[in-house]
């Protein structure tokens, strides 16, 4: 579904992604784990088209995305719940969700919203409140729900566990796992390597702009190098 070949990206003159290869098959949950500053967020920004690609290609559902602007990629089914949530802080929860469905103006929007509220009941309670006042966990749920309102076939998730209490993280990972049943393919970028590998089918380990290891998630969890470097065991 998503194929990344030789992806390079830079900030100014400094190259941060040095030719990255990665593939996500339809229906999979794939995770990219790695330390802070490895380039995980840049990778997702390149995939969504909000950061310029300096080399290599991104192919999504058979189409090369080079030159396709960010806003069109959403319409092709590639949505992102970005790092730091990036919700519309001075709009209400419901307005945020409606903007998630910006590209659509049909009856399914209401149904999708009902589904989102079912997935995250707390958002329904707070639907008329200004989103900037939500707690961190609620904002994360809103960011994911908003991305899902765009009817993605592939969802890019950037650090959904960042800064959240373990019980909220567990709840959010449960939702990610449940996306499988909804036919949404997931590319999950995480520092929380253990939590991410537990729900993922496959994983990639990223270090300073390169993929250094990849394989089925259960193998990575068992790999002594991973256990030492990322799982703290």
């Amino acid at each position, binding site marked *: 579904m998503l194929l990344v070949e030789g992806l390079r990206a830079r900030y100014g003159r400094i190259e941060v992604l040095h030719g990255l290869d990665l593939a996500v098959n339809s229906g999979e949950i794939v995770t990219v784990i790695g330390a802070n500053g490895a380039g995980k967020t840049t990778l997702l920004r390149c995939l969504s088209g909000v950061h310029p690609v300096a080399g290599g290609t991104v192919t999504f559902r058979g189409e090369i995305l080079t030159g396709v602007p960010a806003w069109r990629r*959403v319409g092709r089914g590639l949505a992102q719940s970005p790092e730091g949530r990036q919700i519309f802080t*001075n709009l209400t929860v419901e307005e945020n969700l409606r903007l998630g469905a*910006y590209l659509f103006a049909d009856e399914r929007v209401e149904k999708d919203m009902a589904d989102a509220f079912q997935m995250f009941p707390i958002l329904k309670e707070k639907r008329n409140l200004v989103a900037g006042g939500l*707690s961190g966990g609620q904002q994360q749920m809103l960011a994911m729900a908003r991305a899902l309102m765009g009817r993605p076939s592939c969802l890019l998730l950037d650090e959904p566990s960042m800064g959240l209490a373990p019980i909220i993280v567990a709840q959010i990972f449960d939702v990610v796992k449940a996306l499988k049943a909804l036919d949404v393919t997931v590319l999950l970028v995480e520092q929380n390597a253990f939590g991410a590998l537990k729900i993922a089918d496959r994983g990639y380990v990223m270090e300073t702009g390169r993929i250094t290891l990849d394989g089925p998630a259960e193998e990575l969890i068992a790999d002594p190098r991973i256990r030492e470097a990322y799982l703290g065991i």
Partner: protein
Amino acid sequence: MSELLQFLLSGVTVGAVYALVALGFTIIYNASDVVNFAQGEFVMLGGMTTVFVHAAGAPLPLAVLAAIVLTAALGVAMNKLAIEPARGAPVVSLVIITIGASIFIRGAAQLIFDKQIHSFPAFSGDDPIRIMGATILPQSLWVIGGAVAVFIGLWLFFTRTLLGRAVLATSNNRLAAQLVGINTTFVMTLSFALSAGIGALAGVLVTPITLTSYDVGLGLALKGFAAAMLGGMGNPKGALVGGLALGLLEGLTAGYISSQYKDAAAFIVILAVLFFLPQGLFGRKSTDRV
């Protein structure tokens, strides 16, 4: 009593113009975080273009329309040629680019038009209307009515249309707007067109009262900027309130102190706002939680 009313009426008239200029600042600021100091030039172009198209033989309404459309097009061109290529530069650089654009437009206007002072006939004659001992020019009513129409129109646009919502979303969070499928480049283009068009309209409406020449833009930009700061940069309601407040303050200063000090009113307002109320009256409240 009638004297006070007279000062208030003239204050509201200039205030309406300042409100429109401030609105222009606000729209572009919201879309791009840039304070566009060429905003005054848009006002100048509205008046000057109307003068010259009208003098070339076009009927006044047509000349007005041409002035607004041409100025809006120039606003778009400025965005495409000067602002967009510098995307990613710090906001301060972008602001300096707009100052450069402003000087360029003023210079070009001096060459293309001339250095004379111009006007064109008021839309509904020059016979003052008497209200309780005070008088108001029919053109003042056009100015006030025009401002009211623009503000209502814009309010409907932002609250009732999908595109208006897209503009609001972009101003709230540009990255998030892109990620939900909003074409933020187009939103920028639209904002410059709107802003320039509104500026031109202000210039058109006020020219029969205040006259125009190639260099009226700078003063209007500063007054409009003061009004926008007073109301809170980035808030359309603030632009309206700030513009009217500044106009009234100027009118009263001119009336009760001396008309020589009326320009000082705007600058004292800027200083006072920066010292005591940097967010302005309706400035962005920070509700972000980190």
